[in-house]
């Protein structure tokens, strides 16, 4: 699946998107964030306060307990500040 990052999540990780292949044991969004954190310091920095991170699966907002099975695109970003 494709992971995409925006705003300071993108800046901290250092790139805007990447292909990821988490193991089957990673089943939900919260688990995926934990798995990403283990990938390196820049991820640990981006997800240091996981509860502020907003997530969208296939361009629809989801909560952290959402299942990731079947997702094509998972986006991680800070609270939105448009308008």
């Amino acid at each position, binding site marked *: 699946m494709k992971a995409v990052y925006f705003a300071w999540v993108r800046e901290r990780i250092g790139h805007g998107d990447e292909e990821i292949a988490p193991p089957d044991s990673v089943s939900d969004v919260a688990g995926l964030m934990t798995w990403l954190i283990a990938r390196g310091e820049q991820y640990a920095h981006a997800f240091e306060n996981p509860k502020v991170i907003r997530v*969208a699966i296939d361009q629809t907002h989801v909560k952290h307990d959402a299942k990731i099975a079947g997702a094509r695109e998972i986006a991680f970003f800070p609270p*939105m500040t*448009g308008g």
Partner: protein
Amino acid sequence: MATVRVQAEDFDPVAEAGALTLGRTDVGAVVTFTGLCRDEGGLLDTLELEHYPGMAERELERIVAQAEERWSVQGIVVIHRYGAIKPGERIVMVAVSSLHRGEAFCAAEFLMDYLKTQAPFWKRQKLADGTSGGWVEGKEADDEAAEKWKRA
């Protein structure tokens, strides 16, 4: 009738809102909101608006659909810019037409409140002194404004 656009270019709120009444004699009320880039007392040089292409449009369309479901409106326009925006420039507009004023006011305010907290846009400030002012933080007041529509 709804128009949703996400674009880098400026827009003409007059022409956009005018489309809601053009050639019609059944519209009673038009409410428009225009959000502009403030210079923050001269501190701001540029507002840089990042967005999630694709999802930004989809999310705005979802918010518009919610407004249409909730209030009897005749037309809605939502336009949101991204990219570099200078003080005094427009960032966003919503316009709502309806038979009576109550629906247009409510729907326009709802659209703005939801857009602020649901549409994937992020603002970063570039300051007049050349430094980055960092990412604008989400305001609790905005979350509360969006929450009130759930109770209403």
